[in-house]
C-alpha cells in the first residue's frame, strides 16, 4: 500500500443537490498522494454527483473540497484541470465529431499553444499505453467502439498531465474482456505515481485493483476500508442486493 499520508484530495462533508434533490448528503473522503482509491455502490448512490462536485462540473451545496492543500470548493472544471485534476466522465464524452488525434490535442488544451512539441511527445507516450488508439488515430472518435472510446477518454484525461485522475464508471457498457485490458493500465499508471480516484459500479473490479475503497449508499459513505479486506465482506454485496439470507 502506498500511504505517503499527505492527501492530494480531501473532501469534507460534501453535499450536492439538484434543485431540491439531495444527491450527496455529507461525504468525507481522502485520497493520499500515490493512492488508488475506489468508490463503489449501486446506481443512484450519489457517486457520480460527488465526483462532479470534486471536478468542478457541479457547484457543491455544502462542505469543502481541497486539492493539494488548496481550497477548491466551487472552482470550475477548467480551473481544476489547470490545477492538475483530470476527470474521465461517465459515458466517456469523447468529442465524437472530431478525430482521435484532435481529441487528444484537446486533452492538452491549456498548453498546446505554448508547447506543441511537448504535447506531441505526450501524445506518442500516451498512445503507447493504448496501441489500439494508435491504429485509429485519424478516425472520428464517434466511430470507435465503446472500449476504444473509454481508452480515448482516459488518454485524453492523461494529456492534461494530471496528478490526480478521477474516473467515473469505467466499466459502463463495456465487456469484461475490455475491462481486463483497461484495469492493468490504471494499475501501471498508479505505480508510476499517478493518484487515482475510481468510481465503479462493478465492485469486484474496483476491489481487486484499488488500495482502499469507500462504499456509498443513498448519498452517504456507508463504510470504507482496505480493499483487500472488503473483498470478502458480505456487507458489500448487501449494499447492492439487499440483506440476503432472510429467514
Amino acid at each position, binding site marked *: 500500500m502506498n500511504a505517503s499520508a499527505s492527501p492530494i484530495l480531501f473532501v469534507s462533508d460534501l453535499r450536492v443537490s*439538484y*434543485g*431540491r*434533490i*439531495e*444527491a450527496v448528503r455529507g461525504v468525507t473522503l481522502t485520497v493520499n498522494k500515490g493512492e488508488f482509491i475506489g468508490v463503489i455502490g*449501486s*446506481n*443512484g448512490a450519489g457517486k457520480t454527483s460527488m465526483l462532479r462536485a470534486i471536478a468542478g462540473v457541479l457547484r457543491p451545496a455544502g462542505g469543502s473540497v481541497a486539492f493539494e492543500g488548496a481550497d477548491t470548493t466551487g472552482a470550475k472544471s477548467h480551473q481544476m484541470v489547470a490545477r492538475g485534476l483530470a476527470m474521465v466522465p461517465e459515458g466517456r464524452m469523447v468529442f465524437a465529431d472530431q478525430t482521435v488525434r484532435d481529441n487528444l490535442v484537446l486533452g492538452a488544451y491549456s498548453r498546446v499553444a505554448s508547447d506543441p512539441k511537448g504535447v506531441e511527445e505526450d501524445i506518442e507516450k500516451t498512445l503507447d499505453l493504448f496501441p489500439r488508439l494508435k491504429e485509429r488515430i485519424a478516425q472520428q472518435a464517434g466511430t470507435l467502439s465503446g472500449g476504444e472510446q473509454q481508452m480515448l477518454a482516459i488518454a485524453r484525461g492523461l494529456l492534461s498531465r494530471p496528478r490526480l485522475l478521477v474516473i467515473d*464508471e469505467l*466499466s*459502463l*457498457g463495456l465487456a*469484461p474482456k475490455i*475491462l481486463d485490458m483497461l484495469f492493468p493500465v490504471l494499475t501501471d499508471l498508479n505505480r508510476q505515481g499517478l493518484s487515482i480516484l475510481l468510481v465503479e*459500479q*462493478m*465492485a*469486484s*473490479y474496483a*476491489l*481487486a485493483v484499488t488500495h482502499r475503497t469507500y462504499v456509498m449508499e*443513498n*448519498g452517504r459513505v456507508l463504510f470504507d476500508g482496505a480493499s483487500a479486506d472488503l*473483498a*470478502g*465482506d*458480505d456487507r*458489500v*454485496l*448487501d449494499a*447492492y*442486493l*439487499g*440483506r*440476503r*439470507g*432472510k*429467514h
Partner: protein
Amino acid sequence: MKQKSWAGWAALFLLAAGIAIFPWVGDFIGQRFPTSYELRLVMRAMILAIVVIGLNLLVGLAGLVSLGQAALYGLGAHVAALLSLRAGFSFAESMVFAIAIPAVMGAILAFPTVRVRGVYLAVVTIAFGLIFVNILREWVGFTGGASGLANLPRPTMFGERLMATRAQSFNYYYLILVCLLIAVWVQYAIANSRYGRAMRAAAQSENAARALGVNVVGIRTLAFAVSAGFAGLGGGLFANLALFVNYETFTFTASVELLLMVILGGSGTMAGPLVGTSVLFTATQFLQGLGQWQTFGYGFLLALVLFVMPKGIVGSLAALRARMMATSRARETGHWPNGEPNFLNNQNGQGDGTGSALIAKGVTLRFGGLTAVNAVDMALKPGTVHALIGPNGAGKSSLLNVISGFYPATEGEVTVFGHRIKNDPPYRLARLGVARSFQNTELFGQMTVLENVLVGAHTHFHASFAETVLRLPRFGREERTSRNDALRLLDFVGLSDFADEEARNLPFGHQRRLEIARALALRPKLLLLDEPAAGLTHAEIEDLIRLIRRLADHGMTVILVEHHVDMIMAVSDRVTVLDYGEVIAEGSPAEIQENPKVIEAYFGHGAPASPNAAQVPA
C-alpha cells in the same frame, strides 16, 4: 388565497368603474374633459388590452411565444373592414367573422407546435406575420396597399350609431369596455379550469402532461385559437373605431410591442395584461415626447424590464408578497400513506377476463443502430408489484417508456388490460388507466400542489369548453368533486398543509409524494414508477414501501423501476432483470437475489459472493 382573489375582483371593479365614469368626468369638474382624442386613447388602450389578454393566454399559460400576434390582430381588423366595406355586412355580422376567421387561422398556426417549439415556433410566427404584411402591402386591389382601407361605414347596432360621443351616450366606448370585461372573464374562466391547468401543465412539463392524459396538441390548438380570437375581436373593434386600416399598425414591431405588454405586466398572471397594457401604453404616449428617441426608449424599456423584473410588474409584486407571507406559518407534514386508498377503487376492476394486466411480447426498441430493448417478454398479474431492475443502461427506462406510450416499440406488441397498444400516444394510454411517475420528478413546478393533483384528474372532467367559460352547473359539480378527491389524495400522502404551495418549493421527498398523488388522481389501473426512491431517505423509503403495498392490496398493478434493492425485495411480488436490453432473469425476489447471472451483471465476474456465504443475519 380566497382573500387575494377577492382583492383582485375589487380592483377590477374599481378599474371598470373608473373607466365607466371617465367620459363624464367633465361634468363633475366643469371642464371640457376628456376630449375626443383622450377618449380615443382610452379606447385604443382597452382594445390593446383585449389583444394582450389573448396573447397572455398563449404565452403565459400555454408557454408558446408568438411573434406574429399583430398579424392576427390585423387579420381581424381587415376582415371587419372588408366585410362592411365590400360585402355590406352589419357590424355584428362582421364582428363574428372578425373573431372566427383569426381563430381558425390561429388553430392552423398551432399546427407547427405539433412538431416545433421555442425558437422554431417563433420563426414560424414571425414568418406568418411577415407574409401577412407582405400581402396587405402588395395586394393593392384588395387591401388598398399603403393607402389602406378608408371610409368604413360607421357601425350601427339595433339602429343606433355606435360612436364615442355624448350625443350617442358614448355607446361605442361602453361596448369596448364590455368586450374588455368579457375578455377578462374568459381569461379567468379558462385559467381556473381544467383547460387552463392543462395549458400550464403542457408548458411546464410536456411529458408529464401527456402521461396524465392531456392531449397536448389539442390543448395548444385551443390556446392558439382562443388567443387569435381575442386578437380578432380587438382588430374588429379597432377597425370600427378608426374607420381606417392599413398594414402599418400590424407589423413585426407591433407584435413585439404586444409581447412586451404581456411580459411587462407579468405573463401568466390575471392582472398582468391590464397592468402591462396601461403602463406601456401610457409610457408610449410619453415616449412620443422623445421624438426620434422614442424607439430607442422602447428597446431600453424592454431590456430594463427583462433585467429588473423578468416576472413583470404583477408577477414581481406577487413574488414579493409570497415572500412576506412565507414566514408567517410553519407547515406540518402529515403521515403517509394516511388511511386506505378506497376512494381510488371505482376503476380498479381486476377481472377483465384476460387474467393479465400487461403482456409484452417480443418488445424491441431501437434508436438508430442502438438496441435499447431486445425481445422482452413480460406478463403481469393484476394487483401485483413487479420490479424491473438491471445495471445502468440496461434498458429499464426505455421499456417503461414503451409501456407508457412515449416510444413506439420497433417490434413486438404490448397489451394493457386486453387493449393492444400500437402507436397509441401517452395521453390515450392514460385514459386507459396507465399512470406513471418520472425519474427526475416532472412536477408542474409553478403550479400549486393542489393544481398538480387536479391535472392528474384531467381525464375525469367532461364539461365542455362552453360550459366551462359560462360556468354552467356541470362545470361547478365536476370542479367540486375533483377538488374534494384531490384534497383526499393530498391527505393520503400527507401533504394537506401544502395544498396552496407552489410545487417547486416543496422539499424533495414531498415532491416525490406529490408526483405519486398526481398519478393516483388519474385513478390508474396500472401504475409505473420510475425510480421513485431515488434521493429519498431511509424513513421515506419505508413509507413508500407501505404505500405501494397498500395500492397493490387494493387491486392496482404496479411496475417499479428501482435501484434500492432493499426496497425491491420488500415490496415486489416478481422481479425482472434486464441487462443490455434483454431479460436475463425473472422470478421472486429471493430467487433473483441468489441468481448468479444477476450477481455477475451487477458485480462483474469473480464476484465475492456465493449463495453459501449469505448467512448474515438480517
